[in-house]
C-alpha cells in the first residue's frame, strides 16, 4: 500500500473538498482499489485530539512509516519568523516545524494546490505580512519553506499539483501513477507540476473556440464570446487540462462563463490588473497565446475579425445564442 499523510495549513481546505468529488467511484474506494490509503487526513480520519497527535509524532519520529506527505495550504512563517500564524492545535508548535520534520521522513512530498506549491493568496498581501510561501517555491522562485535543494527520500523535489483548487483527477491520477509505476523528474514540468495535466493549455478544448478563431469577443460578464480580448482570460497561456477533463461533470471556468485566471501558475493571485479585465497596450492584449509570435497574432486577429460571420459576431455579445448555425440544404460534403 502507498500510505498518505495529509496536513493542512494556510489555505481554505478547498483542494480536499474538490478531491471528495472524485469520480466515478467514491474517493476512498477508488484509492483503496489502487493500493493507496490514508495514514491520517484532517477531514476524513477518525483520530482526533491526542490520538491524532500520537500518529503525527509517530510519523515524524519514524515509528509510523508513510510514503507521501501531502500538504494543502501555504506555509505561514510569520509573524517575525515565529510561525505563530498557524500553531498545531493541541500541540502549540508551528505547522511549519511539523512540515519540515515530516518532509524529512517522506519518500515523496506533494504540494496540493497553488497555496502549498507557490504561496497563493496568503502570500499576496503587499509586503507579505504572513511571511507565506510554498513548500519549495516562493512565488516563481525556488526556495520556499524546504529550500531549493530539498529532495525527498525518493530523490524528487516537491511535486506541485498546482491549481486553485486542484482538480480531483489531478491528485488521484498522480497518486495512482506513483502507485502503479513510480514518478520521475521527467514526469514533471519546469514548475514541477505533473505533466499528466500540465502539458495541456486551458485553451485546448475550450468550448468558445469558434469565438476565439474569429476574435468575436465578449464585452461583459455572461456574454458567450471569447473572454481573452476584454474579460481577462488567460486560457491560452495557463497550463492545465480544464477544458479536456471536465469539472463537476460538465464544467470549467470557460464553460461557466468567466475567465481562466491561470490558477495553476505561480503568482496568479496578484496579476497586477483586475482579474476580469484584460490588460492591453495600444488595444492589443499584453498576454498573447503561448508560443504565438506577436506579429502573426496581430495580423491573424485583424484578418479573422473582418471575416467573422454575423452569427458568431452577434452571439458573442449575448448570453444565449440569438442566431443558429445555418442548415445547408444540399447535403454536406
Amino acid at each position, binding site marked *: 500500500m502507498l500510505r498518505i499523510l495529509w496536513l*493542512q*495549513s*494556510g*489555505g*481554505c*481546505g*478547498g483542494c*480536499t*473538498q*474538490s478531491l*471528495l*468529488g*472524485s*469520480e*466515478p467511484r*467514491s*474517493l*476512498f*474506494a477508488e484509492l483503496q482499489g489502487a493500493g493507496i490509503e*490514508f495514514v491520517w487526513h*484532517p*477531514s*476524513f*480520519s*477518525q483520530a*482526533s*485530539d491526542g490520538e491524532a*497527535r500520537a500518529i503525527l509524532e509517530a510519523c515524524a519520529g519514524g515509528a509510523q512509516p508513510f510514503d507521501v506527505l501531502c500538504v494543502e495550504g501555504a506555509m*505561514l512563517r510569520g*509573524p517575525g519568523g*515565529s510561525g505563530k*500564524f*498557524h500553531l*498545531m*492545535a*493541541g500541540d*502549540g508548535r508551528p505547522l511549519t516545524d511539523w512540515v519540515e520534520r515530516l518532509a524529512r521522513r517522506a519518500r515523496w512530498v506533494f504540494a496540493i494546490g497553488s497555496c502549498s506549491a507557490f504561496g497563493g493568496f496568503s502570500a499576496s*498581501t503587499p509586503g507579505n505580512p504572513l511571511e507565506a510561501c510554498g513548500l519549495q517555491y516562493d512565488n516563481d522562485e525556488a526556495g520556499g519553506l524546504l529550500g531549493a535543494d530539498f529532495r525527498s527520500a525518493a530523490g524528487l523535489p516537491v511535486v506541485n499539483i498546482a491549481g*486553485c483548487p486542484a482538480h480531483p483527477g489531478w491528485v488521484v491520477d498522480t497518486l495512482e501513477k506513483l502507485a502503479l509505476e513510480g514518478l520521475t523528474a521527467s514526469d514533471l514540468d519546469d514548475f514541477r507540476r505533473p505533466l499528466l495535466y500540465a502539458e495541456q493549455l486551458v485553451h485546448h478544448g475550450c468550448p468558445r473556440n469558434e469565438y476565439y478563431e474569429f476574435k468575436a469577443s465578449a464585452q*461583459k*460578464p*455572461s456574454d458567450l464570446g471569447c473572454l481573452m480580448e476584454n474579460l481577462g482570460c488567460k486560457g491560452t497561456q495557463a497550463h492545465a487540462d480544464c477544458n479536456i477533463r471536465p*469539472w*463537476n*461533470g460538465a*464544467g*470549467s*471556468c470557460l*464553460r*461557466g*462563463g*468567466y*475567465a481562466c*485566471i491561470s*490558477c495553476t501558475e505561480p503568482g496568479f493571485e496578484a496579476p497586477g490588473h*483586475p*482579474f*476580469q479585465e484584460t490588460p492591453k497596450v495600444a488595444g492589443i492584449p499584453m498576454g498573447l497565446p503561448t508560443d504565438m509570435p506577436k506579429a502573426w497574432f496581430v495580423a491573424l486577429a485583424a484578418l479573422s475579425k473582418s471575416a467573422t460571420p454575423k452569427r458568431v459576431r452577434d452571439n458573442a455579445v449575448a*448570453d*444565449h445564442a440569438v442566431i443558429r448555425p445555418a442548415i445547408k440544404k444540399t447535403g454536406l460534403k
Partner: protein
Amino acid sequence: MTRLVVGPFNRVEGDLEITLDVDDGVIAAARVNAPLFRGFEQILVGRPPADALAVVPRICGICSVGQSAAAASALADAMGLQATPNGLLARQLIQATENLADHLSHFYLFFMPDFARPAYAGRPWYDAVARRFAAVKGSAAADVLPARANFLKLMGFLAGKWPHTLALQPGGSTRAPTSAERIRVLALLRDFRSFVETVVLGDDLENFATLDSADGLAAWADGRTGDFPAFLATAADLGLDRIGRGSDRFLAYGAYGLFPAGLWQAGGASTPLDPGAISEDTRHAWLAAGKPRHPAVGETVVDADNPDGYTWCKAPRYDGTVAEVGALARQAVAGHPLARDMIERHGASVSARVVARLLELASVLPAMEGWVKAMVPGEAFCAHASLPDECQGAGLVEAARGSLGHWLSVRRGRIDRYQIIAPTTWNFSPRDAADRPGPLEQALVGLPAGPNAPPTVQHVVRSFDPCMVCTVH
C-alpha cells in the same frame, strides 16, 4: 480544577483547539481557539473592487459560493444594482447546491463517524452504526460520495466548477443554461432527491418536512430504515437532544426568499433583523484592542502579543448579546414548528442542530426544482452597472453554517476596507470585553471531559458544523 487542551479536531473544516477547565470530570469553562490566521481582509485592501469576486471564494473551500454571494451582494449594494430574475434564480440554485451538499458532507463525513468510536462498543446500536459510518471504511461513503459528486454536477452546469467559481456577479450569473441543460439539471435534482429519500430519510421529502414536534419526530423515526432515523435512535439512547445548549438566541440574515431574516428567542416571536446592531469585539483575540465596532467601520490589526488574546477569532455580538447562527437558527427564525419545539423543550442541542439540517435538505430541494422551472429562456441572466469610485455596500447572506456578512468601502476606485463576519465567527466566538462566552463556549459547560469521559465534547463541537478557515478569514 485541571486544564485540558483539546485538539486538533479532525473532521471540522480548518483548525480548532479548545481549552477546558475541568472540575471533577465536568467542564467548568471552555475557551475556543482558532489557531490559524488567514488575513483575507488585508489581502483585499487596495485591490479593484470587482476582484473581491475572485478573492473571497478562496477564503473557504467548503462555503466558497457563500463567500462569492456575499461579495456579489455587497458590490450590488454599492452599485445600487438589482440582479435580473433569471440571475437571481441561478444564484439561489448555486447557493442552495453548496449549502445542501455541505449538510450532506457534514452528516456523513464529519459528524457520524464519532459514533463509531470504540467508547460506544456495547451500545445496542453500535455494530450497525460503526459498519455504516466509520471514517473512511464505513459502507456509507460508497453511497454518499457518488451522490454528492452527482449533485455537485449542478455546479458544472450553472457555475463552471466548485469550489471557487466566478459565476456569481453583482447583477446575477455569468452562465445562462441552455434549454437542454435545464432538463439535465432537473434530472440531477431528481437523482439527488431519490438518494435523500431512499438512503438518508427513508421517506418522501415533503412528508418529513411537515413534521411539527419532537414527539412527532420520534414517532416518525420509530422502526424506520434510513441513515437519519439510525442517527435519531442513537441520539435518543445518548440523550443528545438535551445537551449542547448555547446562548439560545438565534440570528439569521434570510435565505432564498424561503427563510426570513431576524432574531428569535425561545418563548417569543421573531423580530426583524437590524444590521446596525451587529458589532465585533477584539478583546480576547490576538488583534489590536479597541471598542466594539460595527463591521462597516471595523478594523483587523494583528497584535500577536495581546495578553488577553486566546484566538484569532473576533467576538461578534448582536445588540451586544451572543447569538447562534446556522440551519437551526434559520429554521427557528422562520418558525419551523419542529425546530422551535425542540428548542423550547431542551434548548439548542446536538440533535436539534442535526435535525434542522435535514429539514433544510427536505424543504430546499423541492424549491430548487421550482427555481429551475421558473427560469425564463431568452431573458437575461446578468444585469450590468459600473461601480462608483467612492461607495459602500453590505452583503448579508446565509451560508450552510449560518449568517455571513461582507462590508465593503471603496475609495478612489479601490477597496479601502473589507470586513467579514463568518458563521463560525458567531458560533465559535471567544469571550467579549464583558467576559460573556460565545455559543460553543457556553454549550460545553457542564459536559463530561477528561480521561475515560465519553466523546460528548466531540459531538457538541461538530453539531455546529464549524468552518474554521472562514472564522479566521
